[in-house]
Structures are given as structure tokens and as C-alpha cells.
């Protein structure tokens, strides 16, 4: 077998896929096996992603192209590895491992096929990050969404199903918009490869431009729905609140997929050429982002349940990123990437923490109770091995510290990475390339400050209510394997802080290559197919 390093590019898609499918051949009660298989798979995924990151970061940034089916560009569906996709891959697996470990506490027993669905979600995410083909992106979006539907409904229960129904309905509408947008783009340009599109879009004839833009705008709406832009993102907090905690933790990166795609496509399609379509839609992204931040702030403040608070934090994070993409400026993009990583880790940890904290008192346990009384046949498995949470000594302290850490991260206070991210963004905004700081930027700054403040107020309020106010100290019954993931993620943010220098250096490089997509385009279009068949197989 001749496996060149290039084949590694597809590994992030195939590893979870194969593992997930193989797990189908085993009974669901063989949990130990399923759990270890999926954990191993995610660890492998992490290792592969790290390797890919190194590959992408060598020689001043390599673009590795994988031509599926060995067809030449732009006819083949291609996978493209560059710094950005490698980074997103790592982020995915970094989130996946803790979420998976967390789920072993109880969630993976709450319904069927948890591990398969989880792994296929990872496949969808990784595919979406890697693919260089617009329609293939749709397909991976659907893989990802389908798995997320399954996981968001995992364990069933009244609230979850109600939220799931909305989630699915809206995303189905979004998928239809996606299709309309893609087909309009194809109908105007005759191609689907993103790199090829980047070449063809600036050359499009004047009379077709309007309708092409119309298509791109509709496509953009689809992504904005995923990213949760106001007023398209009302579904998001509800869905995330009622999804099982480990699922919500991994879903935090799903809202970032929309951002990722917007970032990639907007810079690829309109970035370099300042032609007629140049800067298309940036103001909308910017002001939409601002509106989203405002709404996120409102929601954060208005949330009583921690889960909703976290859900709105996702919106704040999305809004910030959208607004920043709308600014289209290299160093802000770099800061945004850092922020993306940091906020994703933080919110992810927070979702898991919330369940631990609220386990004793809240609706989530009711949801579990509802699922327990599910009716009909084949429910025997629910009864086996009731795991009793142990009140570990000091668990409350760890939870408390974790909560403080999450608050600090969300509010963007030092010393964790939330601060570095916010600082980087502010620095970048306040040092614009053109010289003068636009009044729009001041709005963004004000909102950034306000968002930190609102997170602070809301988190303090919630934290006091949860940890300080109860007359009887609450000692949630949590398992070690449920605390460890949270702490892992928080340590990750600490590491981000400590290693801020090199990481920011990487982000800068990523942002620069994003803003100058020539190497991406050429990398894809000039990628040579492997030597033809006859050479090796002719008898």
C-alpha cells in the first residue's frame, strides 16, 4: 500500500466514519467497547489533525490538495488543507475528546447509537472544514446537521423534542436556501470548485452579475442562519439549551462552521479583486454582527437558566466574529481566529459545567426523568447499571473554580484567553490599516465592552445564585470523568493564554494567507492528479 502523506488529508473524514459505522455492527449494550472505540478514534483524529497542522504550517504555509477520485481540478471534488482548515480540525477534535469523555458519565446511555452519531457529526464537521467544493460543502453540512439533529434529540424528552422540531424546521429552510444559492452560482459560473469560482466570479459578464450576487446573497443567508445572526438565530439558544450537555459542547463549533464558511468564501470570492463585486455584503455582515452582539447581550442578561445564558453567549461570539469578518482586515481577522478558538473552548466547557452544576435542581434532570419513563418495548437497557454520582470531596470547589474560569472567559477578563482575544481584537480595531478609526469601529468596541460587561453581570448573578445563595451547600453528584473534561478545556484556554505569542503568530499567518487567496487558488487548480492507472495495473 502506498500511502503518501497526502492521504492523511482525508483521514479526518474517514476515521470517524469508519469507526462510527463499524460500531453499528455491535449491540448498543456493549458500551465499553463503543466508548473506547470512539475515544480512540477521536484521539487518532487529534493526532492526525496536529500532523496536518504541521504540514500546513511548513514552508511558509502549504496548501495540500486532495483530488478525490483522482480527477483533475476543477472537475474533481477536492479537499484542501491549509492553515485555517487544519486549525478548525484541531479545534474540532480538541472539543470532541472532552465532550466524549463527558458523555460517558451518563449521556451515552440515554439513547441509541450515541457514539455513531457523535462520530458522524465529527465527520461532517471535518468534511465541511476540508472540502474545497461548494456542493460538497452542502453535503457535509447535511451530514453534520443530520447528526446534530440526532444528537440534539438524543434521549428524547418533551423540551428537547420541542426545541429539536424548531431546530430542524429552520435548518431545513436553510438547506433549501443553500441549494438555491449553490445552483444559482453554478448556473452563472458553470463550476462548483471554490478555487475555480474565485477565478470565475470576477470575470463574470456584467449582465449575469446581478443574478450571481443574488445567488451568493441567498447562500449567505443560509450560512448566517447557521451562524445565528440576528434575526436569524433565535433557534440557537433554545436548541443548545436543551441539547444534552456533551452535545451542546460539540455543537458550539457548529455555529462556527457558518462563520468559517463565510470567512473563507467571502475572502475567496471577493477578497482580492476589488472589482465590482468587491466587498460585497461586508456591511451587512458587520451591522448584522453588531445586531447579533446586541441581541446576545440582551439575551445573556435576560437569561435565568444557565443553559440559555450559554446559548446567548454563543450568539455574542458569533456576532463578534461576523462583525469582524465584515471589517475585512488582516490583523483583525487574526484576532478573530484567536477569539474563535478561545470562545469555542470556553462555551464548550461552560455547557458541560452547567449540567454538572444544575444537575441537582434544574430542568435538565427533569428532562432525563421524562426520558426514563419512555414507554414501549426494549426499554430494559435503561435500567441497567444505575451509576450513582459520587460527591467527590472538593467537587464543589472544582466546580466553583471552573465556573469562575468560565465567567472570566466569557467576560473577557484576564488571565484566561478570553482576555487575550478581546485585547487582540481591540488592538487590531484601534490600529486600522488605513489610519483613522471609523465610527463603526467605535460601535464595535463599545459593544465588545458591553458584551463583556453583560457576561460579567449575568455570570456573577448566576454564580451567586448557584454557588453562594443556597442555604444548604449544594454538592452535586458528579463523576470524575465529568469534571475532567471541563477542567481539560479550561486548561486549554490557559494554555492559549500562556502560549499566546506563538499561537497569535500562527493566526497572523493564517489571516494573511486568507486575505491573499492566490496560493489557495493556485494550489487547487494546479494540483496534479496521480499518475494514470495503466502504469501499475496493466498485466
Amino acid at each position, binding site marked *: 500500500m502506498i500511502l503518501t502523506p497526502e492521504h492523511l488529508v482525508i483521514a479526518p473524514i474517514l476515521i470517524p466514519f469508519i469507526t462510527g459505522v463499524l460500531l453499528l*455492527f455491535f449491540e448498543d449494550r456493549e458500551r465499553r467497547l463503543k466508548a473506547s472505540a470512539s475515544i480512540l478514534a477521536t484521539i487518532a483524529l487529534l493526532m492526525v489533525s496536529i500532523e496536518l497542522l504541521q504540514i500546513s504550517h511548513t514552508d511558509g504555509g502549504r496548501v495540500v490538495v486532495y483530488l478525490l477520485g483522482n480527477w483533475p481540478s476543477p472537475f474533481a471534488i477536492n479537499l484542501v488543507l491549509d492553515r485555517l482548515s487544519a486549525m478548525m480540525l484541531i479545534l474540532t477534535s480538541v472539543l470532541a475528546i472532552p465532550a466524549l469523555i463527558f458523555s460517558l458519565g451518563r449521556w451515552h446511555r440515554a439513547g441509541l447509537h450515541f457514539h455513531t452519531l457523535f462520530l458522524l457529526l465529527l465527520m461532517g464537521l471535518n468534511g465541511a472544514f476540508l472540502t474545497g467544493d461548494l456542493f460538497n460543502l452542502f453535503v457535509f453540512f447535511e451530514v453534520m446537521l443530520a447528526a446534530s439533529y440526532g444528537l440534539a434529540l438524543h434521549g428524547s424528552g418533551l423540551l428537547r423534542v420541542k426545541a429539536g422540531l424548531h431546530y430542524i424546521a429552520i435548518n431545513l429552510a436553510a438547506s433549501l436556501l443553500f441549494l438555491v444559492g449553490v445552483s444559482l452560482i453554478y448556473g452563472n459560473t458553470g463550476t462548483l470548485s471554490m478555487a475555480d469560482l474565485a477565478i470565475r466570479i470576477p470575470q463574470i459578464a456584467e449582465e449575469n452579475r446581478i443574478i450571481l450576487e443574488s445567488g451568493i446573497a441567498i447562500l449567505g443567508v443560509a450560512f448566517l442562519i447557521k451562524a445565528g445572526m440576528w434575526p436569524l438565530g433565535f433557534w440557537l439558544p433554545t436548541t443548545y439549551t436543551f441539547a444534552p450537555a456533551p452535545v451542546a459542547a460539540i455543537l458550539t463549533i457548529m455555529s462556527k462552521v457558518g462563520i468559517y464558511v463565510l470567512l473563507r468564501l467571502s475572502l475567496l470570492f471577493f477578497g482580492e479583486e476589488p472589482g465590482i463585486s468587491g466587498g460585497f455584503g461586508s456591511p451587512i455582515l458587520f451591522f448584522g454582527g453588531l445586531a447579533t452582539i446586541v441581541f446576545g447581550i440582551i439575551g445573556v442578561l435576560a437569561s435565568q437558566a444557565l443553559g440559555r445564558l450559554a446559548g446567548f453567549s454563543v450568539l455574542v461570539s458569533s456576532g463578534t466574529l461576523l462583525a469582524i469578518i465584515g471589517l475585512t482586515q488582516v490583523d483583525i481577522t487574526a484576532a478573530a481566529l484567536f477569539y474563535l478558538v478561545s470562545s469555542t473552548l470556553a462555551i464548550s466547557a461552560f455547557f458541560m459545567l452547567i449540567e454538572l452544576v444544575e444537575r441537582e435542581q434544574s430542568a435538565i434532570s427533569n428532562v432525563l426523568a421524562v426520558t426514563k419513563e419512555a414507554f414501549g418495548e426494549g426499554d430494559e437497557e435503561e435500567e441497567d447499571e444505575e451509576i450513582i454520582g459520587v460527591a467527590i470531596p472538593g467537587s464543589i470547589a472544582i466546580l466553583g473554580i471552573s465556573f469562575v474560569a468560565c465567567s472570566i472567559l466569557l467576560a473577557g477578563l484576564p488571565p484566561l484567553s478570553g482576555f487575550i482575544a478581546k485585547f487582540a481584537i481591540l488592538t487590531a480595531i484601534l490600529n486600522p490599516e488605513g489610519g483613522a478609526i471609523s465610527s463603526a469601529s467605535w460601535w464595535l468596541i463599545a459593544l465588545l465592552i458591553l458584551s463583556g460587561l453583560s457576561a460579567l453581570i449575568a455570570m456573577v448573578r448566576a454564580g451567586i445564585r448557584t454557588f453562594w445563595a443556597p442555604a444548604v451547600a449544594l454538592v452535586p453528584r458528579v463523576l470524575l470523568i465529568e469534571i475532567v473534561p471541563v477542567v481539560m478545556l479550561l486548561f486549554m484556554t490557559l494554555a492559549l493564554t500562556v502560549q499566546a505569542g506563538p499561537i497569535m503568530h500562527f493566526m497572523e499567518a493564517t489571516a494573511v494567507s486568507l486575505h491573499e487567496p492566490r496560493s489557495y487558488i493556485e494550489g487547487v487548480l494546479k494540483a496534479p492528479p496521480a499518475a494514470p492507472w495503466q502504469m501499475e495495473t496493466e498485466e
Partner: protein
Amino acid sequence: MGSVLAAMLPANARNAEAWLSGGVSIAAFVIVVCLYPWVADGEVVRYVIEWLPELGLNFTLRVDGFAWMFSILITGIGFLVVLYARYYMSPKDPVPRFFSFLLAFMGAMQGMVISGNIILLAIFWELTSIFSFLLIGYWHHNAAARDGARMALIITGIGGLCLLVGLIIIGYIVGSYELDYVLEAGDKIRQHDLYVPALLLILMGALTKSAQFPFHFWLPNAMAAPTPVSAYLHSATMVKAGVFLLARLWPVMSGTDEWFFIVGLAGMSTLLLGAYFAIFQQDLKGLLAYSTISHLGLITTLLSFGSPLAAVAAIFHMMNHATFKASLFMAAGIIDHEAGTRDMRKLSGLFSFIPITATLAMVASAAMAGVPLLNGFLSKEMFFAQTLEQHRASLLDGVAPYVATIASAFAVTYSVRFIHTVFFGSKPEDLPREPHEPPHWMRLPIEFLVLVCLIVGIIPGLTIGPYLHTAVVSVLGERTPEYNLAIWHGINTPLVMSVVALACGVLFYLVLRNYLARGADGPPGVRSLKGKRIFEQLLVTISWRWARWMESHFGTQRLQPQLRLVIFIAFVAGLWPFYSADLHLSPPTLTEIDPVFAAIWVIGIISALGAAYQAKYHRLAALILMGGAGLVTCITFVWFSAPDLALTQLLVEIVTTVLILLGLRWLPKRIERIDNYNTLTVRIRRYRDFLLAVACGGGMAMIAYIMMTSPLPDTIASYFLEQAYPKGGGTNVVNVILVDFRGFDTFGEITVLGIVALTIFALLRRFRPAPDSIEIPEQQRIQNAYDDASANREIGETVRDYLWVPSVIMQWMFPFIILLAAYLFLRGHDLPGGGFAAGITMAIGFLLLYIAGGTRWMEDRLHILPMLWIGFGLILAVFTGMGSWLFGFPFLTSYFHYMEIPLVGKVPIATALFFDLGVFALVVGATALILIALAHQSIRSHRTRTVEITKMEEDT
């Protein structure tokens, strides 16, 4: 230096903790002291670690005289507080947490003063806010502590965030965040356009932190903290951070009108109000808190003047205030500890119980009042002198001396009150505890601090002089003025002011004495106007009521508005480009209109409209009409050369219809005349929806029309058409695209189908029908009842009669359907068909058997095991794709070859066929799984019903 930060090691034992903390702070203190030789020479000790060089954020520590002086205060008083706290804290308190927070706070504070990078400074600044929050809220079972902590954090947090922005602006102006550069760039900063915003933001930070009016109210509420915390935070550290920053940036920011007016106004009002409020406090710590506010106002006022001498005075007063206030807080703590209350209305005559503490407290409060021979006097004299100077020639300047004198008088009043009320007068009655002197070690810190007050007050030049000078030089540099720390400057205006203040102060006390002894807490007149309450209400209003209101008005949790928005925005987005530019259209290329096709679309349109119209009350009709629209879609595909699509559309159509029918059984009955309400709002909403629907339809029609009539660009399709056979080995280009050119899409697509099947299966395992649909359908009830009532019939005969003949045909169709599936599958690569169509066909075959025979009958004979089909299909597809690795080609590279099979002839063997086989298996499995899982719900509900009936019978 790092050791200061690293000292946060929580242990368990109280003593061990105290020792550890004490050790750490004394070690830090020693380190700081050791640095003096360098600092004294005017050198700056630096320690740099690169952290985030891209953004100019480095871990730079920088000790100059000013920082050194503060470090001494922080570590020194820190040590004393630890010592004090060791005895103060109850053995039942979880002290490890306390000490670890305290140390962490100390570290943060220390870090702040020695930061050499203004961003680093902001970081430590925020850390002090966070740790002070934890310290203030240490007794969190107490609601006051929680509120106080929260308020402190929120106020200082707001300030901190503003400060950060302000500092970033400074960094932008200067081009560096390094303090050294910043300090050199004073002129540049003051002349920059962004000076005012930066100043405002930085002042936001500084003034909130040092509790300046109007942000002062958090400080008294922070008194709910344990007294050591108060002593530490409100004397030497937390609140000093604000004035520290003002002093730190004084060289670069001060000297402008804006600076003077903002800082001065804040300082003077704080000075006056704080002192005034302090008089009327009944809580000892409250009194001290307001006095702290007032003294900070004094420092701020000094800094606002912008004159070097004033700065010297400010720095000097920072030190003095730290010493006497720390000792006073500790004394108050002892009183509280011993007497069990801090209410001055209850306390009196304690002198006889705790004479030593009382003496110490008296000296300290004398310093606070500015009595000569104590350190407080010195800096106050300097302050008076400065207020007399004209700085900006304004009203503010004019009133400054009066304000100073009045405030000073107030200070005397509250100091006298403190002493007199607590220690003198009649013996206390009904005290919670019998007071006596505390352990000596607990008193020691106070003794030490009071001693310092005395020594500095008496021989300032010899004691504090050099150190103060070092600090002053490091702040002012070349602008360091001549100043004299002597006690006696002769009889001059400041002295007169002092005397007046002293006299008036005592007088005030005498006048107010009786009122105070009885009065309520808080100053008269504005008692009801509590900052705290205003703040809380503001916070609740904005952050809760308004937020909730806005969330419900700018957001929604209902699905319909969300979908409306999605569609509306998509509509606007799609049409926006048309609006913003003129539409040039190439001349349409049209195909000739065929009336037959037009008539077919009349059918399609009517079906669609009918389905839309009937979907509420006539679900079955809507489903049937939807089928009509699907059929028209299918014919359209046929018409325009897409046989594959037509096949697939048709098959999917059939399955979908059955699927929805399977689901229809569980939906509630809907009766038109009962719930057809028709109010005005409903009609308006319908009208709006209708308009939007029409608009969307029109928009899509327009875009579709424009697209269809404009020429096709040069597409990738020509490559596929040309290479499908030579390189893909198939003549059906669509199929070759699906399994080869773009096989990866198909790979993802079957994954979606598989996932959905799994999800449906999992969800239906937990399915619970609504109570009103749990019963068997009415038809079956009636028919069974009929069978039951007929003498010669058994239950179930009706259905047997019903299906007897048709099921024979349906069963015998099964092999033919298998053959059809095989046919569609095998020809797919060359002609319309393929794995997907074949798979659905096969699944329909299974479905038909289920309909014909029922679930039990079917499953007694054929076990389909859909899960294995799914797994097998997916694995086959992926392994086929990976097969190409064996030859070094990318995933899904296909290989085809014509194989000569005896008798059969040339047969194309394409790997794509195996891939397609995977597709086939997956589709069969997934579709069957979905259908069967839904069908099984009926049996399950039968079973549940039986169980329920049995239960009921048992009960009766």
C-alpha cells in the same frame, strides 16, 4: 518577583495556612526591601518575558521608586493583615480559601504596581477586581456580603474594561504598550485627537476603582467582608489602585483642562461628600469606609491639580492613609470581635475594657483627623497649601480651599465621634459579648502601624523622607519640585485652615452628638438616596427588566415568526442585487411552448395550491394533491431529458406518501368548524403571509426565468460528458458523476440517509403517542366490534376478508420487485437507474409485504435486519473508496475493466459498481428502517393498551 504570584497554594490547616501566607508575604517584603539600593539610585529594575510580541503585550515587570513604595505597602501591610487575620478568623471558617484568595489578591496587586506594560497592568487590575470579589464575598451565606461583592465587581469590572480600551488607545498613540515609552510620550498623548476618549476611559477605570463620586457606593457595601480584608483592600491596596494609576499616568495625562475638571470635580465632591457621609454612619466600618472615600477624594483632588508639589502631597498621603487606615480597620475589627457589634449606638465606654487597643485607635484616628505630630497632618498641610494655589483659574479652583477646610472639619468630626462614642461614655449595655483585650499577636500589627504614624509624623524628614523622595522622583522625574517635610512651616494659611478645621470639627461633633447617638444610619436629607439602592435598581431595570422586555420583543421562541424572518430575509437578500443595479439581460433564448406541457403544469399548479389550501383540515386531500404535484415534477424531469431524476423522484414520492400516511395516524383530529376562529389579527397575519408567499414565489419564478433564458456558461459538465465513457466506464453520465466524478457527494449523501435512519430509529424507541391517539383507530374498533357481535365471525375477520385476495397479488409481486431492483441497479452505470433507485425499489418491495401481511406476518417470515444493511452499505462504500489506496491513488479513484466471462461475453467490472452496491444496501436498510420503525409504533401501542386494560381489570 514570580514567587509572589506563585504563592497560591491552598492547604488545609489554619495555622499552616497562616504561616505559609505570612511566610510568603514576608518573603515578598524582604525581596522588595532588597531591591531598594537599585531603586534608590533612580534605577529601574526590569524583568521581561516575551509573551505576545505581535501585539506588543509582554510580561514586563518594572520596579521604580513609586512602584517600590507601593510594593512595600502591599507586602508590608499584607503581612500584618495575615498576622491579624490568623487571630481574627474563626476556627470554623474555611481559612485555606481565605488565605489563598488573600495571597492571590496580594499577588495581583503587587503585579499591578510593578507592571512595566500597561496591558499587563490592566490584566493585574482586573485580577484585583476578581480576587477582591471573592474576598468580599467570602462569607457568602450572608446576603450583604454577596451583594457587596457583586457590586464591587461590577463597578470595578466596568471600570476595568473601560480602562483596557483607554490603555489600548494610549498604546496606539504611543506605538507601544511598554510603560517606559508611554511615560516618555506625554506631549504626544496630550495633543492627540484621541486624548479625550482615552482620558475618559482611563478615568472611568481609576475613579471606579478608588470609589470616587459618583462610583463611590460600592465601597461601603464591600464592608461586609471580613475585617482583615477591609483593612487590606481599603487602606493599602484595592482602592489605592485607582490613585496609583492616576499617579502613574500623571506625568503623561495631567496638566490639561479636561484632566483638571474631571479629576478635580470628582475628587473634591468625593472628598466633601465622603466626609459628610462618614459623620452619619452608625456602623464603625461604615464610618471608616466613607472616610476612606473621602481621603481618596483628597488624593484625587491633589492629583487633579497637575502641579508637581500637589503630586508629591498626593503620593505622601497615599502612604499615610494606608498606615492609619489599616490600623483603624484592624482596631474596628478588634472592637467588633470583642464587643460583638459595630453599631456605634450600642458601643460606648470600651476604654476600660480594651485600653491598649483604644489608645492605638485614638492615635490612628488623630492621624486621620490631621492632628499635628502625626503623619496625616503633614500631608494635609501640603494639601491645604495646594488648594490655595490657582491651577486653572476657574470656579473649581476658587472653591477648593473652602471644600478642603470643610471636609477637613468633617474629618475631625467623624474622628472625634469614632473615639468618643466607642471608648468613652457610660458603660455599654446589652453588648453581645463581654469585651477584653485581644491576643497580643493580633494587636501587634496595629501597634506597628500606629508607631509608624507617630514616627513619620514627628520626624518625617529622617524616616519617610528618602523613600518618599525616591517615589516622587520616579513619578515626576525632572519635574520633581523642592519640598519640605517639616512639621512646622510657620504660621501660614494652611495652618490656619487646619486650626479652623479642627475647631469646627469638634464643634460640629458637639452639636450633632445627641442626634448621632439616636439617629438612623446615614446622612440626613439624602438618607433615602442610597447609591446602592439606585445602583441595584438601575441594574435590575437595565440588565433584567429591559433585557427581558427586549428579548421578548426583538427575539422570539416561536417557530412561525422565525421561519417568516428566514424567508423574508432570504427574499430581500435575493432581490437586493436587482434593486441596487440596473438589470441588463441578455436576450432570452427560449424553447417553443408545448401546450401539453403547459397543461401539465396547470395540473401541477392546481395541485400545489390545492395542497396548500387543504393541508389544515383535509390532510389526506393535501397529501394526495401533493402527490399530484410530485407527479408533475416527475413528468417535467422526463420532458427535459432527465430520466434518472424522474425515476428517483417517482420512487421517493411513493415512499414519502406512505411515510406520511404512517405518521398521519398519530396526529390529532382536526375539525373545521370547531377551531376555525377568524379574528381580525388572524386575518391580517394570513394576509401578510400570503403576500410574502406570493412575493417569494414571484421572486423565485423571476430568477428561474432569467436563469433559464440566459445562455449557459462554459461548464464543467462538458468534461464529464466527454470523459464519462473513456475514463469513467459508463455511458449514463449522471450516474458516472454520482458514483465516480462526484462520488464523494454520494458518499456524504448516503451517510446522511444512514444518520437520519438511526436518528429516527432512536427517537421512535422513545416514542410516546398522545393520549388521544393511543387507541386503535376508530375503523378497527368498529370493525372488530362488528365481528365480535356477529355470531358467525371472529374478531379480525373483516380485515382478513379485506386483504385476502389483494395480499396474494402483493406477495407475488415481491420477486418481481426484487428483479426490478436488480435491473435498475445493474444498468445504472450505463442507463437510467443506479443504486439509489434500486435501493428504494427494494425497500418498496418490503413495504408492500408489510402492508399486505402486517408486521407480525412479515416478521415471522422475513427478518430484514436494516441495521446490518446500513452498516454493510456504508462499509462497502468506504472500503471501495479506500481500495484505490492500494494502488497509490486518492480515495474513490475508480477502476474499470472489461472482463471476458465465458458465455456471457464482455462485462464491465467497475469499482464504481461496488460503491453503488454500497449505496444500494444503505438505501434499502435506511428506508426499510424508517418505514418499519414507524410501522412498529402501532404494535407497541397495541401492547401498551393491552397492558393498561389488564391493569384496569385487575384493579376492579
